C-alpha cells in the first residue's frame, strides 16, 4: 500500500520470525517465514501481510478484526487465542511466534479447522421454549433477572473453550457424548431465562450433554475472550442443582409426590432416560453409556466381530451430596437396596456394541 506509512512513531518495521502450520488433513508441517512487523499490530495483521506477500493462499478465518465475531481462533505459541486480539507487543523481541490450527477439531487447511462439531451440538441443544400464554410485546422481566443469562449470551462462539476442554481435546471418543462448555453455558442461559417454559434444562445437561464429564479444571473460563465465568457461573450451578434436586431427601420426596413434567429422575451418568419415553427429547440422539440398545445397526456391527469403535464409558466421579459424601441412607435413596457395584447406569444384559466378544461360530448358519 504505497501511501500507507509504515510507522507512526518512528521505529522501523522489524523483521520477525513466524512458524505457521501449513497443510491439510493428509498432513503438513510448520513453515518458517520472516515477515515485517510494525508497531501496534496484532498477529492477524501479520498473517494478512503474509497473505499479501509470501503466502497468498495461506488459509485463515477472520471477519470483524475487533474481537466481536470469534472467527480467527487459532493456537499461538500453543495458547488458544483470537489472533485479532493477540498483540505483537506481548512477545519478546526476537521471539519466534508459532501459529497452529485449533487442535481439537480436524484440520481443513492451514489454520482453518472443521468446527462443525459445535454446530451439531448446537442443534442438539433444545431451543428456547416461549411461554405459551404470553403474547409478543407482553414479556416482562427485571434487569437483575436477565443479567445472569445475558452474561452467557455475550458468547461470540469462538469455540476456544471447546478447543481447550481436555474432555475432548485429545479424546475424539468423548465428542459424541459431550457437548462442551459453549453449550453448557447455553443450557445455563436457558435455565436462568426468566420466561423459558422448559423446566428440565439441568437434568437434560446432565443426562444428554455430558455435563458429568466436566471436572471443573476451569480451562474454558481461562481462555474465554469475553471473560465469561463459564465454570463458576454456569457449570458449577448446573451441577450443584442437579445434585441437590436429585439427592436432597425432601426434594426427592416432593418429586415423588408431586410429579413434575421433567425427565424422570435421571441419575448422574444417564442410563435409563432413553427408555422412559415421557419426554419429547427422548429419541433425538440420546447417548447412553449402557442400557438397552435398540440400534439394530450397532448390534449387527457388534456381532461381526471385535468392535474397535465402541464407546468406552468415561470414568465418572460418583455423585455426592452437599457434604461431599456418598448418599448412603437407604431411606432416602431412590432405589431399593444398595447402589450397583457396576454403577447405577449399567443395566443388564449389556448392549452388544459394548461387548468385545465374538463367538467363533457366529457367522455359521444356525440350522
Amino acid at each position, binding site marked *: *500500500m*504505497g*501511501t*500507507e*506509512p509504515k*510507522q*507512526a512513531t518512528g521505529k522501523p518495521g522489524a523483521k520477525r520470525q513466524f512458524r505457521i502450520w501449513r497443510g*491439510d488433513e493428509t498432513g503438513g508441517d510448520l513453515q518458517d517465514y520472516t515477515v515485517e512487523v*510494525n*508497531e501496534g*499490530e496484532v498477529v*492477524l*495483521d501479520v498473517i494478512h501481510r503474509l*497473505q*499479501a506477500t509470501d503466502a*497468498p*493462499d495461506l*488459509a485463515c*478465518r477472520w*471477519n*470483524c478484526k*475487533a*474481537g*466481536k*465475531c*470469534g*472467527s480467527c481462533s487459532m493456537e499461538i505459541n500453543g495458547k488458544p487465542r483470537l489472533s*485479532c*486480539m493477540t*498483540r505483537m*507487543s506481548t512477545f519478546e523481541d526476537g521471539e519466534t511466534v508459532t501459529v497452529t490450527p485449533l487442535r481439537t477439531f480436524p484440520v*481443513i*487447511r*492451514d489454520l*482453518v479447522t*472443521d*468446527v462443525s462439531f459445535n*454446530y451439531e451440538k*448446537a*442443534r442438539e*441443544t*433444545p*431451543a*428456547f421454549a*416461549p411461554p405459551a400464554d404470553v403474547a409478543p*410485546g407482553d*414479556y*416482562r*422481566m427485571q*434487569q437483575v433477572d*436477565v443479567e445472569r443469562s*445475558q452474561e452467557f*449470551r*455475550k458468547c*461470540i*462462539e469462538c469455540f476456544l473453550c471447546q478447543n481447550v476442554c481436555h474432555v475432548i481435546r485429545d479424546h475424539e471418543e468423548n465428542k459424541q457424548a459431550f457437548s462442551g462448555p459453549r453449550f453448557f453455558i447455553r443450557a445455563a442461559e436457558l435455565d436462568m*431465562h426468566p420466561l*423459558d417454559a422448559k423446566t428440565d434444562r439441568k437434568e437434560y445437561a446432565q443426562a444428554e450433554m455430558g455435563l458429568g464429564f466436566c471436572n471443573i479444571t476451569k480451562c474454558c473460563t481461562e481462555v474465554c475472550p469475553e471473560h465469561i465465568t463459564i465454570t463458576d457461573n454456569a457449570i458449577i450451578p448446573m451441577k450443584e442443582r442437579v445434585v441437590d434436586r436429585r439427592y436432597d431427601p425432601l426434594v426427592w420426596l416432593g418429586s415423588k409426590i408431586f410429579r413434575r413434567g421433567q425427565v424422570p429422575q435421571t441419575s448422574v451418568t444417564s442410563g435409563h432416560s432413553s427408555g422412559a419415553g415421557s419426554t*419429547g427429547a427422548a429419541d*433425538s440422539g440420546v447417548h447412553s453409556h449402557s442400557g438397552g440398545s435398540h440400534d439394530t445397526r450397532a448390534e449387527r456391527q457388534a456381532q461381526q466381530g471385535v468392535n474397535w469403535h465402541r464407546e468406552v464409558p468415561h470414568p465418572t466421579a460418583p455423585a455426592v451430596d452437599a457434604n461431599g459424601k456418598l448418599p448412603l441412607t437407604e431411606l432416602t435413596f431412590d432405589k431399593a437396596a444398595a447402589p450397583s457395584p457396576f454403577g447405577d447406569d449399567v443395566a443388564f444384559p449389556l448392549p452388544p456394541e459394548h461387548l468385545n466378544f465374538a463367538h467363533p461360530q457366529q457367522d455359521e448358519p444356525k440350522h
Partner: protein
Amino acid sequence: MTETRIERHHYDVVVIGAGGAGLRAAIEARLAGKKTAIISKSLFGKAHTVMAEGGAAAAMGNVNARDNWQVHFRDTMRGGKFLNNFRMAELHAKESPQRIWELETYGALFDRTKDGKISQRNFGGHEYPRLAHVGDRTGLELIRTLQQKIVSLQQEDKREFGDYEARIKVFAETTITELLLDGERVAGAFGYYRESGEFILFEAPAVVLATGGVGRSYKVTSNSWEYTGDGHALALRAGATLINMEFLQFHPTGMVWPPSVKGILVTESVRGDGGVLKNSEGKRFMFDYVPDVFRKQYADNEAEADRWYKDPDNNRRPPELLPRDEVARAINSEVKAGRGTPAGGVYLDIASRLPAEEIRRRLPSMYHQFKELADVDITKEPMEVGPTCHYVMGGVEVDPDSGAAYGTVRGLFAAGEVSGGMHGSNRLGGNSLSDLLVFGKRAGGHAASYADQLTARPKVSVTAVEAAVETALAPLQRDTGESPYVLQQDLQAVMGELVGIIRREGELADALGKLAELRERVAKVSAAGGRRYNPGWHLALDLRNMLVVSECTAKAALERQESRGGHTREDFPGMDPKWRQVNLVCSLDGDAVRLAQKPLPKMRPELIQLFDRAELAKYLTDEELAEFDALTEEER
C-alpha cells in the same frame, strides 16, 4: 475443460447472506412452508451484523410514551434528507416494534426498563429514546437470536421428518458467484464451498439477496472482508437496478492507527466529553472550519469553547461538535494540506483534557477496547483518527412492500444493507437493525409466495453453468496476472482518495478513468494455489464485484451535483431541492454501467402532512410547496 464436479440442490427459496436480514428472510420463507437454503459466506453466526453496537430503533414507546410510528417516520425522513423511499420508511416505522417483540419470543434478552419492558436508549437523530439494546452488543444478540430460532425450526423439522435439514439448511462458508436466469426469471444460483473449492449449484425459482454492503472497496473501513458488494453486483448482472449508490456513510472519527484497530469507530461522545482534534502541528484546527450558518451556535475561540462543557447555556459549542460531515471535511482538508499524522489522520486528544480517572469513568468501553486491542492508553496518549467507511445507503432498487427487485429480472428479492431506498441519503443510527428485521421478513415472505404462484419452475441452462465454472476457475488457471491483494489495494486507494468523503468533479472523473484501467487488470488477475480454502482465489473472484459497484458509486457521485447526506461535493456544497426529486439508477449494459435519473415516488398526503411547512421548505421545490399548501387548504 475436463469434467467439473458440481453438487446440485433444489430449493424453493435461496437466501444469499446470513446476517440479520438473510436469517429473518429465511425464517419467514420456512414458516411459509418453503424449502429454504441459507448461503453464508462465513461460518453461521459470524455475520457483520454482530458489529452493530447501539441498538435497534423501534417506536415501542417504552421509555417515552409519546413515541409512535409517525414520529419515527419523521425522524427517518429527516435523517435521509427526504430522499428516502417514503413507503419503506413508513413500513419500517410501523412494523419495527412487532419485529422486536417477536425476537423476544425467539429468546432474545434485551436490557429492561424498571417496569420490566424492553429498555430504549437515546441516539442521534431520534426524537425519543427508541433503541432497544443489550449493552453495546445488540447486533450479536440479534444474530444469535435469529440463529437459534433457525436451530429451533430445524429441531421441529427433525421431530416431524427425522432430518434437521428437511426444510431449512445453512450452507456455511459458501460464496455465490453467479445468479442463473431462465429468460428474465431467476432459475438458480451458482457458487463454491470455500472449504473445499468444490462447486455448488442451487436450482431455485426465488432468491433473496441479503449480502450487506461494499465497504471493502475502501482502505479505512469498519467493514469485514465479506463486504465486497456481492449482492449489488449479482443483482446488476441479473438485470436488476441499483439506486442511491452515491451515498456512503463515513464516520468522521475512525481509528487510522495502530493497524490493529484501523477502521474501528471512536464514539462521538469522546468529543462531547471534551476531546479535541489537533493536526500534526498541535493546532486545534476546528475553529478554522466553522461554516457561516453555524457561527451563532459554535465558538470561535478556545476559551469560550472550553467553558461550554461546564456552562452550555452562556457559551457557544466547541467546533469539534459540528455535524459529522463538517468534521469529516475538516479532517480531510488538514490531511490533504499535509498537516495530518503519519498514518493519514489527525489527533483526537482527550488525554490532556481530562484526568485519567475521569476518562475511565466516562468512557469505559472505549478505554478497554483500545487497551485490549491496541495497547493504546487513551488516558495517556492521543488517538489517531480519520474518516472511516461505515455503511452504504445505496443498493438494489426494490418494491417497497415486497422487496422484489426492479429492472428486468423476476424472482429476485433484496433486504438489508444490499437494498436501497429505505435510508435515503443518510441512515440514522439504530435504523439498520430494525431495517434488517422488517424487510428481511417481507422479502422472505414475498419470495415464498412468488415461488408458490409459479406454474412451472424455471430451468437452469447448461451453458450458463459452464460459463460460471469457467469464470470461477479462470484466476487459478492464469499465472501471468497480478496478485488480487495488489489489485484490491489499488482499488481501495482510488476509492479512498478520489471517491471518498469529500468529492470533486475532477477527482471523480479521474477515478472513473482509473477504475477503467483497473477493470482491465482485474480481468487478468491470477491466484496462486489450489481450490481448497484459498483466500487469494476468493478475493480474486470478489474483485470484479467490488469493481462494478465502485464504478456505480463513482458515476452516480459525479452525476449528482449537490451535497446531501452521505454525498458531499466540494464544488456543490448546498442541498438542491431539484436533486431531491430524483434517484440515480444504475444498470448494466453489457459490461458497462449505465446511469439514469428517475423521479422519486410522491409521498401520500397524510404522510407529508406529518411535517411542518417550515421544515419542508428546506427540502422541497417551490412547486412542491405550493402543492403542499393547496393540500392544507383543502383540509380546512
